[in-house]
């Protein structure tokens, strides 16, 4: 079995995003970029399934600018076997990403596609579900544990009330939640080795996908800022404040 892992290059989660003065977006010039944290979890899970002898190959794919190569090299350094960059300088929405991934799935026929549940830049939380719909395959979103069992995969999901377990017939789509695993760091020798692993470059046109956006961004603005309030000296003063709020 082959596992496909889509990874997105996003602003590093430690950086506080700044809105551009002209209101057209978020300033990404000279900002540290990294692999979307949920995608690191996805790569890690794919590697663990391979290491358990249940998969033979892990293929990482990214849709984005030439620089997304770095993100793919990170996946390769973690242990992925090869990578595909679908290169474009346009911003590609989840629907179009899902269409590109669908074409790749049809060519590569993986048993599992493991994505992040959410990209921390657009906060869309859509791509995996859309890919599953386009392929007519089942989905295990917000995965807390993933267990491959013959031609099924059992996914425990993090839901609003707790946890839910579903059984999916493979091929299936999984999206990762935070508790699925703790991703490994790439070792220096593996970073060196990753440089010679195969990385194919394609374009959206190669897959016949039109990436024209369906949503037009009219404006990007700062959210209202909260002002810091007062500090109280001790618990008694806090008790008085809480009582004044009328909740106790």
């Amino acid at each position, binding site marked *: 079995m082959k596992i496909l892992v889509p990874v997105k290059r996003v602003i590093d*989660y430690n950086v506080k*995003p700044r809105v551009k003065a002209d209101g057209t*977006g*978020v300033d990404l010039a000279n900002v540290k970029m990294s692999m979307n944290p*949920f995608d690191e979890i996805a790569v890690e899970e794919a590697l663990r399934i391979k290491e358990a002898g249940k998969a033979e190959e892990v293929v990482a794919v990214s849709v984005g600018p030439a620089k997304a190569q770095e993100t793919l090299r990170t996946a390769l350094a973690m242990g992925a076997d090869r990578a595909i960059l679908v290169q474009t300088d346009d911003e590609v929405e*989840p*629907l179009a990403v899902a269409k590109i991934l669908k074409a790749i799935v049809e060519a590569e026929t993986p048993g599992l596609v493991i994505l992040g*549940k959410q990209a*921390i*830049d*657009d*906060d869309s*939380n859509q*791509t*995996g*579900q*859309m*890919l*599953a*719909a*386009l392929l*007519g*395959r*089942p*989905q295990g979103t*917000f995965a807390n544990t993933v267990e491959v069992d013959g031609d099924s995969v059992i996914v425990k999901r*993090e*839901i*609003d009330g*707790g946890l*839910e*377990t*579903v*059984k*999916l*017939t493979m091929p299936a789509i999984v999206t990762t*939640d*935070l508790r699925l695993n703790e991703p490994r760091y790439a070792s220096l020798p593996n970073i060196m080795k990753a440089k010679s692993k195969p990385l194919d470059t394609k374009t959206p046109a190669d897959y016949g996908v039109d990436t024209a956006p*369906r*949503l*037009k*961004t*009219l*404006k*990007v*603005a*700062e*959210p209202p800022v*909260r002002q*810091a*309030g007062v*500090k109280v000296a*001790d*618990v008694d003063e*806090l*008790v008085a*404040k*809480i*009582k004044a709020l009328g*909740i106790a």
Partner: protein
Amino acid sequence: MKTLVLVEHDNASVKDATLSTVTAAAKLGEVHLLVAGSGCAAVADEAAKIAGVGKVHLADDAAYEHQLAENVAPLVASLMESHDAFLAPATTTGKNIAPRVAAQLDVMQISDIIGIEGDKTFTRPIYAGNAIATVESSDTKLVITVRGTAFDKAAAEGGSGTVEAVSGPGDAGTSSFVGSEIAKSERPELTSAKVIVSGGRALKDADTFKEYIFPLADKLGAGVGASRAAVDAGYVPNDFQVGQTGKIVAPEVYIAIGISGAIQHLAGMKDSKTIIAINKDEDAPIFQVADIGLVADLFKAVPELTEKL
């Protein structure tokens, strides 16, 4: 515009998240509901009473019992032939189903809206709420998830909708429900609690969390939340997590205890009316958003506070 709202329920009653989604839908046009479940006729009757609701589509079938996205999405897609917009609450159920519907209809979903500026124009937070985007859809049908804290709840009573049975393609045969672990709690649900007490990494372990946070919450009749660090370390279950990638809350009062205030945490609670923070580090970022701050060791301050309230 004719809208179709996904009713969030457990086959027994309507969940609160539905009500704010109805408010958002009513801003767009006529409101129809979909109750997909099994043995859920009572849910449809309850839903028909929500103020402003027209038709309630009831799909009562074993295939919809656990609202598996593989089965529900094709049902919604077929109903969308006679509706212009599909709205679901931005809960784990809504987030699981709506994008599948969007892809089936070949439209780009608008996730987690917080405002409606026009028939096709919406505002939504991006980058953990550090920016608010105004987006206009060019699709002919709309698929939307709605952030519950951004819209008032529609009145649960006063409507006079009519219930109409519908059927869909049924079981797609690719997935099945195995089981669930849903903790029952006497405390208010996070997303509808008026007061929330949240604990962070500083609470050390599950027992300490229980010992310090729960009595204070009980005193205030509050819901209990947590930071990701507290959940990852196993102090409390995953459904306690507040934040960018957990639950979004906006109670009257949010009390953050031993939580530093990382942007991912703030994304989930900074719309609370009053924020109170207890942290021993006076430079903790949480104090930049707190209305009332106490710099103190929580292990001393929290028991004293609980006792004096």
